[in-house]
């Protein structure tokens, strides 16, 4: 409208009722809505860019090795031959160890925080757990190198070998002096415990009180109420929390890189050094000498992205269908 400000204001005042009826909006409104919409849509654009960029970077390796890349254990820059299998196995096994340790501890803690703990203790405990989640992974990794790994080497590994040495996973030499797949699993457990605990706590808190009262009324003991009425009801949400923790463990880089020993191998013994997809990318990227080497590292990234996306989609679907949008994301 090519008029002066006053006229515009007068025009708008006169037009307002008509505009409200028509549902139209002034220019500023539309511009602002579009601006915010574009910014909100950036999340889709970013996901697309990540996928595209990794796929583009890995073209060379995909054309050269096809699906052999996923099942081959050779990583030989001298001959320019690359395979991802040991890293895929390392990623899955280190995350599995983390889950085995973290799931019972996290869920028990979440139950304690929602059902059992005295009220005055809840708030400080929750704060400690949230602070644990805030520790940068490089610091946790440094602590792991300096304190945990030597302790594993001198105390835990000999003890495990003595008691459970008949199991192949607790058998074999400790080449890495503590730097090992098991060390990575333990560090990952420490990192995902606060995540699984916080989300599980929110899930348990959303279990209706009626659920508990009904079970008590039927004469159930406190343990039975927790197990059947609370945990049973919240099963799906808790599963979502665990899967979200898994997603985080699969992609965790720094802390793992610092304690896993970084060997391009996967052995059954958990005392042996290994690598994960993320840790191998982190240590090799600056060493890459050929285009194919780079491309293979991009493809490791693509595999990692594929796995984590799948796991995260599953986790979000479980969490969102359990409790609607009221459960906020914890990262």
């Amino acid at each position, binding site marked *: 409208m090519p008029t002066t400000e006053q006229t515009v204001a007068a025009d708008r005042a006169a037009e307002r009722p008509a505009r409200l009826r028509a549902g139209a909006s002034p220019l500023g409104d539309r511009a602002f809505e579009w601006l915010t919409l574009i910014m909100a849509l950036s999340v889709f654009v970013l996901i697309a860019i990540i996928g595209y960029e*990794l796929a583009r970077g890995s073209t060379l390796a995909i054309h050269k090795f096809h699906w052999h890349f996923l099942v081959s254990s050779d990583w030989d820059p001298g001959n320019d031959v690359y395979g991802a299998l040991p890293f895929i196995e390392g990623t899955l096994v280190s995350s599995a160890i983390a889950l085995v340790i973290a799931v019972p501890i996290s869920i028990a803690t979440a139950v304690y925080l929602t059902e059992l703990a005295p009220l005055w203790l809840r708030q400080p405990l929750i704060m400690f757990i949230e602070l644990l989640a805030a520790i940068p992974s*490089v610091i946790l990794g440094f602590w792991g190198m300096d304190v945990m790994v030597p302790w594993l080497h001198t105390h835990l590994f000999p003890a495990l070998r003595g008691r459970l040495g008949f199991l192949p996973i607790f058998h074999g030499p400790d080449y890495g002096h503590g730097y090992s797949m098991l060390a990575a699993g333990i560090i990952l457990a420490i990192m995902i415990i606060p995540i699984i605990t916080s989300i599980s706590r929110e899930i348990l808190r959303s279990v209706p009180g009626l659920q508990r009262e009904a079970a008590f009324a039927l004469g159930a003991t406190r343990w039975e109420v927790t197990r059947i009425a609370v945990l049973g009801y919240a099963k799906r949400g808790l599963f979502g929390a665990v899967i979200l923790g898994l997603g985080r463990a699969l992609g965790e880089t720094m802390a793992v890189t610092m304690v896993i020993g970084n060997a391009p191998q996967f052995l059954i013994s958990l005392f042996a050094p290994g690598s994960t997809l993320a840790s191998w990318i982190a240590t090799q990227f600056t060493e890459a000498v050929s285009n194919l080497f780079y491309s293979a590292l991009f493809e490791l990234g693509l595999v990692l992205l594929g796995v984590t996306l799948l796991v*995260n989609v599953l986790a979000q679907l479980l969490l969102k269908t359990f409790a609607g949008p009221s459960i906020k994301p914890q990262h």
Partner: protein
Amino acid sequence: MELLAFACAILVVMPLLLVFYHVLREGLSSVNLAFFTQVPAAVGEKGGGMANALVGTVVLIGQAALVGVPIGVLGGIYLSEYGGTKFNWWIRFAADILNGVPSITWGVVVYGLMVVPMHGSSALAGGVVLGLMMIPLVMRTTEEVLQLVPGGYREASLALGISKWRTIVQIVVRTALKGIVTGVLLATARIAGETAPLLFTAFGNLGWAHGLKEPIAAVPLVIYNYAMSPYPDWHRQAWAGALVLLLLVLFINIGVRFLTRDRFQQKI
């Protein structure tokens, strides 16, 4: 059973205390004036500091905020104030998925996107990668706090004839400003400690970066590089760096808790 659950809770809290104790013990004996004022000494020589990395981290966070905060806040406004339920569900879903993308993957992507075309690592690439990681974090917290603003505020403002966008900017956002700032601070604390995405983007620098097109040092990167080195003096410096970084991150996290105390207590 109660005892067992209590033991688990203690077990969960233990690592925080152990790590904090160790970082304090090792770090306090290593922090000195030189740490804050000097650049790293030559390899093998004693002394030197982390001044360039401290400044580098501030520069990287500043750039990241320039990228992440506007996009995140505006996107959060859309999620809270506009759009249909179903459509926004998808955006929220995508933001949560984006939050789960491993940080090393971000590093590789921005390497391909910026470092290769620009023929080298740069502070700019480091800032952008951290900024992109901030977007979904800021977007979700912004949305969450905007939804806490009572609908009556919006209606009252609209009823006065104030246009919708000015209602949002001047009433809704202003009411929730403290919450938005909290979200931004938490996102900052999160990216301040990120190392993996910086490995091939900001890359690190033993001296000062002259301009944003040069590689730049950052505290978490230096901690990693020094920790992996065989020199005891570098280890000592890495602990000092870890102490500063940990205090910064914990300070923001605890500070934010006091800032939003009422809201948090209501939720429990």
